[in-house]
């Protein structure tokens, strides 16, 4: 005869124990006693219902038949009032008695209502159950003038969003000076507040509510210091209080919650506790994910199988449409990598302690969150957090391991989703969600579920253009290998996916690809580079080199000009020339003189020798020109500084013209900006070299910041997707202007592209600093002893005597 188990409380925890136990023991007699009148439902989705007004019936975790099918006795609207653990008996509020061999307490918690005056007034609500949800919604939609939400935590913000969605003015009242202080650091919090403001949610910080003003119905709040705020709808969301009344009455040891050990046992034999009522190793979790882990362990304990719950790393997603926020673990570590784009509202952070990942915050762009949250959970050791952030932002759900948990609400891993397709015969995301229940909780994982199912269910076919014909591998395939196998260098790629031959044509292309995919955190191998990139200067017909220092936007100073003149004298530079790119070129320089010249110039490299961001030509613009509509010089300089040092599939030349007269020739540049009445035109794909092509208009935008943003987004898209040596004038027609516009103007994709650009940019360094720290001691010198090399006339390599021309 199998044992009888009574579970007290039909929340997510009660239901989870019920399911985990039934899975382990088909015969156990299970009774689930629910104080609430509805069958177990998904509390998490109340936030959603507050916005949409959907029927709470839709929240049910399982359809009514499920309980009969699984032989679970479900008692609704009944409270357990007393328990006799010696006899294994308990009493319900209607006087009925139940017997049990084992008891599970899953009594959850209640919203914490602080003991301030007026807390009981009509118009004041917690946000915990379906009734609260309905009451708040009815008031917000039905004539409340101004709502106040006390508490700027996750739940408070979700409540405020629900209220704002009904068209009711709402202010979040927060005790501290920043939101969600338990999950976020100051940087993320400072970006969250403006994002909420855009959703019509006002926030007041440093407000300590001392009373709710009545007398018959809430009319306002009273703050410490004497200030007041009018409010006829007040939602209180300041925390939870574990429901331990029954446990205390039974004599079970309680602290904040019911104290349990690693097997989920309480101080009384045969009595377990799971969920928000339980306190494990000093912690009470207010989240769903830990509940599933706890329930699995409790079920094992119930059938006398040894199992241990070792605690959970808390993670949360803010369920506010329009704001993407995922956080896990601790907000701060002893080492932190942060990538932020204030204008785009993006903040991504990875915190480590002693070399292990302890926390992640992803705001505005949550790409790669599954992998990062998994890393936080497992406390993965990591050397380069910034690189991990970069990798995550590139990785799609398809790159995740099978063990990565995709749906936190229902504890579904990627492997479960894959199995539903490959073994379970599902072919659509909808079917997979129905079978696995992934995506049916808070819903925030749905995009990931769809992507994984799509990848598992269908294949891709594409006409290949090979990066190198010897390898018969495309740029995309090689990039995939570099990412997946963590290849760091050109020789890694050759070893991992080469043919054993190397024709050489592809070496510089691979060198670019590795650096691009690895966001400049690759292993540099100079032998794979063309001579120009080995010595950061352009080789000339006689084997000498040219030196073009950077002059941002074509603007220079008397001091720079003097240094250039001095260098030209000192090193007997044969020719100084103004280039077509608005800067100065020192031509005919000996390789061994390069480091000293760079040092004397004290100017950064202009990358005139590289497939990289070259010049930004500018005209005088509003600074001086009587026709100027935009600050061409200022924007040109800003743009050049923002992109300087980035390598590209082919050279990228830019121009910024202050008006459509276009004196900077911006319309024949790879990327060109032209100030027009009311804004900026952003163009790309122009050229006037071997090919002459007018640049296409990507967009016309209102502000300078937007213009730079669109241009930057295009630059990164080109960096990631063009074939090596494919100029923008070939790239745009190949991809299609329409598609490029869609991608570059898409807010989310755009933000991701810019973030990756920023990460790559962060690892760039002026190549001319190699004068102090050369790649090889003989990077700039030949093998002859220095005496002969230095005193001899420049050793120009000429045609050999009698050689043909």
């Amino acid at each position, binding site marked *: 005869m199998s044992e009888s188990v009574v579970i007290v409380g039909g929340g997510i925890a009660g239901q989870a124990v019920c399911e985990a136990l039934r899975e382990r023991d088909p015969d156990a007699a299970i009774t689930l006693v629910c104080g609430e009148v509805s069958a177990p439902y998904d509390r998490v989705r109340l936030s959603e219902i507050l916005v949409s007004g959907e029927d709470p019936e839709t929240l049910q975790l399982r359809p009514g038949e499920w309980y009969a099918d699984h032989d679970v006795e479900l008692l609704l609207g009944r409270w357990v009032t007393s328990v006799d653990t010696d006899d294994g008996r308990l009493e319900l509020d209607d006087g009925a008695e139940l017997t049990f061999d084992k008891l599970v307490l899953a009594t959850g918690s209640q919203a914490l209502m602080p003991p301030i005056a007026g807390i009981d007034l009509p118009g004041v609500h917690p946000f915990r159950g379906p009734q609260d949800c309905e009451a708040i919604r009815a008031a917000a939609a039905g004539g409340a003038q101004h709502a106040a939400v006390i508490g700027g935590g996750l739940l408070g913000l979700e409540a405020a969003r629900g209220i704002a969605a009904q068209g009711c003015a709402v202010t979040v009242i927060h005790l501290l000076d920043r939101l969600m202080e338990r999950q976020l650091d100051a940087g993320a919090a400072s970006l969250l507040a403006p994002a909420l403001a855009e959703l019509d949610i006002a926030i007041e910080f440093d407000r300590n509510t001392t009373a709710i003003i009545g007398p018959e119905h809430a009319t306002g709040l009273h703050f410490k210091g004497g200030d007041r705020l009018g409010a006829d709808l007040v939602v209180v969301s300041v925390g939870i209080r574990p429901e331990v009344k029954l446990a205390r009455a039974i004599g079970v040891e309680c602290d904040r919650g019911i104290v349990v050990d690693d097997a989920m046992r309480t101080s009384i034999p045969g009595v377990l506790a799971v969920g928000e009522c339980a306190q494990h190793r000093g912690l009470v979790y207010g989240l769903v994910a830990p509940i599933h882990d706890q329930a699995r362990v409790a079920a094992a304990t119930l059938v006398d199988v040894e199992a241990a719950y070792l605690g959970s790393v808390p993670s949360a997603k803010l369920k506010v449409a329009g704001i993407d926020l995922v956080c896990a673990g601790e907000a701060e570590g002893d080492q932190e990598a942060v990538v932020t784009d204030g204008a785009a509202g993006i903040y991504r952070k990875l915190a480590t302690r002693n070399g292990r990942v302890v926390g992640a915050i992803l705001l505005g762009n949550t790409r790669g969150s599954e992998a990062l949250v998994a890393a936080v959970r497992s406390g993965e050791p990591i050397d380069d957090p910034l690189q991990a952030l970069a990798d995550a932002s590139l990785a799609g759900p398809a790159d995740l391991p099978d063990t990565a948990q995709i749906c936190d609400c229902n504890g579904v891993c990627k492997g479960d989703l894959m199995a539903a397709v490959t073994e379970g015969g599902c072919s659509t995301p909808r079917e997979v969600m129905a079978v696995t229940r992934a995506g049916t909780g808070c819903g925030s994982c749905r995009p990931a579920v769809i992507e994984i199912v799509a990848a598992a269910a269908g294949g891709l076919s594409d006409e290949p253009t090979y990066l190198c014909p010897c390898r018969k591998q495309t740029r995309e395939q090689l990039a995939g290998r570099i990412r997946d196998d963590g290849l760091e260098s050109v020789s890694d790629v050759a070893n991992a996916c080469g043919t054993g031959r190397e024709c*050489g044509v592809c070496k510089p292309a691979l060198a670019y690809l590795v650096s691009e995919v690895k966001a400049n955190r690759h292993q540099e191998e*100079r*032998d794979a580079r063309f001579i120009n990139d080995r010595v950061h200067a352009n080789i000339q017909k006689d084997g000498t080199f040219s030196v073009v220092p950077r002059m941002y936007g074509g603007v220079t100073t008397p001091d720079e000009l003097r240094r250039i003149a001095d260098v030209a004298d000192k090193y007997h530079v044969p020719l100084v020339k103004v280039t077509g790119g608005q800067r100065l070129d020192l031509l005919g320089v000996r390789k061994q003189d390069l480091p000293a010249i760079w040092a004397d110039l004290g100017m950064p490299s202009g990358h005139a020798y590289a497939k990289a961001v070259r010049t930004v030509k500018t005209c005088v613009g509003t600074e001086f020109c009587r026709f100027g509509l935009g600050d061409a010089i200022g924007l040109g300089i800003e743009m050049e500084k923002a992109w300087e040092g980035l390598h590209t599939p082919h050279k990228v030349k830019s121009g910024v013209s202050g008006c459509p007269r276009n004196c900077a020739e911006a319309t024949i540049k790879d990327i060109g900006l032209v100030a027009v009445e009311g804004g900026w035109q952003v163009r790309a794909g122009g050229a006037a070299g071997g090919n002459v092509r007018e640049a296409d208009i990507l967009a016309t935008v209102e502000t300078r910041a937007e213009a730079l943003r669109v241009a930057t987004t295009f630059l990164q898209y080109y960096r990631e997707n063009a074939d090596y040596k494919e100029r923008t004038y070939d790239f745009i027609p190949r991809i299609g202007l329409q598609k490029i516009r869609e991608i570059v103007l898409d807010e989310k994709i755009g933000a991701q592209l810019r973030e990756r650009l920023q990460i790559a940019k962060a690892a760039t360094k002026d190549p001319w600093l190699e004068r102090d720290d050369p790649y090889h001691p*003989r990077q700039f010198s030949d*093998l002859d002893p220095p005496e002969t090399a230095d005193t001899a006339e420049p050793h120009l*390599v000429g045609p050999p005597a009698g*050689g*043909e021309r």
Partner: protein
Amino acid sequence: MTYACRIDDVPLGEGRVVTLDGQRIAVFRAAGGWYALDAACPHMGGPLADGIVCDRAVICPLHDRRYDLQTGEPLGAGDPVAVHAVEVRGDQVFVRVSTREAVAA
């Protein structure tokens, strides 16, 4: 054989020029071993030591002509370039500079 350089003087996969017996010689440290060619490309005198080394060939940086490092033969169009024997002893590299006649023969 004449001493040219120490092994570490030439980065792996690259070439460097050295003057031996009055001739400019490009010494290469390829994955498959050491090689030496005349420093100037027979086409227009391009500095072969600055070329990309791959398989057993070097690509001239000026106009991409390609020469077999062992034989000096062009892979494709053009004239051959003189090759010189190389020997590594310990960490030192020695070259036997061949005369122009020897190449012609």
